[in-house]
């Protein structure tokens, strides 16, 4: 274990904040208080934190439609994110983007994405910038098991391999794309696709923060040192449905129970660090309470915040009316 106490606390803080954020969004959405489409990350927290704890502020990530966890792990402000979800003027994108388009370039967050498979090609570009400018930075592209079937993912892995770019491809495999099982939609193995393009490819247990962290450290360090791109196939599961409002009739009750009880990355982390005597229960509980308070405040402030106005409609675009 290479992580010190401070880092362990940071990991748990991040995962709790993601959990609280998306749990709160789940309830707000059900109460009809939130507009649009939202896709929640609950159950996958160890992936975002395990990866992003190996990144610095200048490294970049590109995310997916299920992006809140990636954003928080990369350091986006939860108040600004929450305001964005409510479409408020002080939201992280001025209310113009919403849940699927959260971005904060100052934090190296190149954008969530409404287009499945839209992010990884952008990561190639960031990686090209770092390679050209010799900055030792890396760029990470997240995508799902469903997205792994898009041509853009294969094209990106090949290009990264050919140009030896510092690009990391992270397939977050939660077993489903909308209501369709991975077993149905993915021909062959996701891992083999990375290998086929010559990427350093690893399968990782996404419920286990430490496994994600170690695997990410290995491939990110290599990419920083000019050893080229990699693929991490992270096996995980999500608690909620595809989007809020999904009845999840394609999953059985037993599966839902198993995901909640046995595959919860926060519970698994907690158990591990306590059993190993690395952190005390009270510390972890304090973090849980702090996260709750932070998110509660974010929601309250977001609800009270102002909406954008007519002038805002015509800004940030090159044609003026």
């Amino acid at each position: 274990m290479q992580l010190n106490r401070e880092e362990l606390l940071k990991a748990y803080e991040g995962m709790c904040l993601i959990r609280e954020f998306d749990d709160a969004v789940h309830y707000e959405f059900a109460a009809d208080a939130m507009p649009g489409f939202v896709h929640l990350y609950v159950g996958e927290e160890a992936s975002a934190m395990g990866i992003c704890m190996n990144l610095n502020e200048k490294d970049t990530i590109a995310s997916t439609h299920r992006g809140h966890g990636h954003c928080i792990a990369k350091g986006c402000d939860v108040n600004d994110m929450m305001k964005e979800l409510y479409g408020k003027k002080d939201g992280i994108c001025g209310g113009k983007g919403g849940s699927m388009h959260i971005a904060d370039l100052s934090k190296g967050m190149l954008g969530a994405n409404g287009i499945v498979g839209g992010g990884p090609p952008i990561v190639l570009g960031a990686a090209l910038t770092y390679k050209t400018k010799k900055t030792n930075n890396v760029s990470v592209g997240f995508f799902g098991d469903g997205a792994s079937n898009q041509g853009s993912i294969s094209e990106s892995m090949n290009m990264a391999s050919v140009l030896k770019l510092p690009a990391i491809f992270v397939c977050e495999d939660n077993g489903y794309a909308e209501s369709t099982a991975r077993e149905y939609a993915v021909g062959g193995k996701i891992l083999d696709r990375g290998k086929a393009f010559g990427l350093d490819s690893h399968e990782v247990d996404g419920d286990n923060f430490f496994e994600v962290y170690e695997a990410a450290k290995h491939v990110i360090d290599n990419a920083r040192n000019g050893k080229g791109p990699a693929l991490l196939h992270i096996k995980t599961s999500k608690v909620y449905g595809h989007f809020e409002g999904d009845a999840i009739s394609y999953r059985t009750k037993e599966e839902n129970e198993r995901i909640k009880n046995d595959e919860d990355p926060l519970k698994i982390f907690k158990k591990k660090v306590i059993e190993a005597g690395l952190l005390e229960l009270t510390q972890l509980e304090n973090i849980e309470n702090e996260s709750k308070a932070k998110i509660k405040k974010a929601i309250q402030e977001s609800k009270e915040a102002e909406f954008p106005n007519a002038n805002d409609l015509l800004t940030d675009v090159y044609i003026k009316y």
Partner: protein
Amino acid sequence: MPIKTYREAINEALLQEMKKDENVVVIGEDVAGGAGTNGEQDAWGGVLGVTKGLLKHFGRERIIDTPITETAIMGMASGAALTGLRPVAELMFVDFMGVCFDQILNQTAKFRYMFGGKAVTPLTIRTMYGGGLRAASQHSQCLYPMFTHVPGIKVVLPSNPYDAKGLLIQSIRDNDPVIFMEHKNLYDTSGDVPDESYSIPFGEANFTREGKDLTFIAMGQTVEICNNVADTLKKEGKTCTVLDLRTLSPLDEDSILEAAEETGKIVIVDESYPRCNVATDISALICQKSFDSLKAGIKMVTPPHTPVPFSPPLEDLYLPSEEKVLNVAKEIL
């Protein structure tokens, strides 16, 4: 006559055509749903439930769930159309055309002409378009002008349940590639829809209101807006024509010119981006062919030239509304 929703009308058209012709297959992401799971099959029936229930009639052989792979979906459907099937392929949101436009633009649309008339491509692409659901920039676009721009593909925009059924049946029977565009906000609207099968020919616009003082030209969701504005103006003593284009390709030029000549005052309401859209195209048509009949400059109501914003008040400002259309109409009445 039975009352059905736009969603039900589309579902019924698919059901009836699939029963009639075994070459008709439905291809798309989660068009049934539940594939490979231990839970419910037909779990989704499309994101908004439009194809729900077809699986139990036709099985997975003909209701074909695919991976997320729009290029392969459109290519497979085109190739199947070229070789003996009559596929209805779903492009879940029209915004995703960005992923697969080559198969539409350079392949399927051009087969017949490019191959010297030898190819028949009876392909229907069903897709959702339009704003109002707070779905933000990548899930709210109209984009029908981009398809209308391409020769070889027919573009259909039903504005109500009756037309949705008749035009979809026509689309499936048509031997050219057709893109059939469903406005998300219309799925829950309802109207008279006969139980029996019927088709509506392409290139025949529909006069939904007739009047003497002004002509609204509309398509898809904007038809309802214009009908309501026409009804409001009627109470104020002005009668208006509303022309529902129904198909953008082929375009019913005769009805457009007839409507223009009758009133000489035109307001075109188009939800797509304002540059090179249907409104500018029709405006050019009227100016070229019927300039002398105009009693005022042609007016257009469109969104501004920006992506679709997420924030609810911004999206409301962005979209054409009855209020905006009424104000513009009054400028020339």
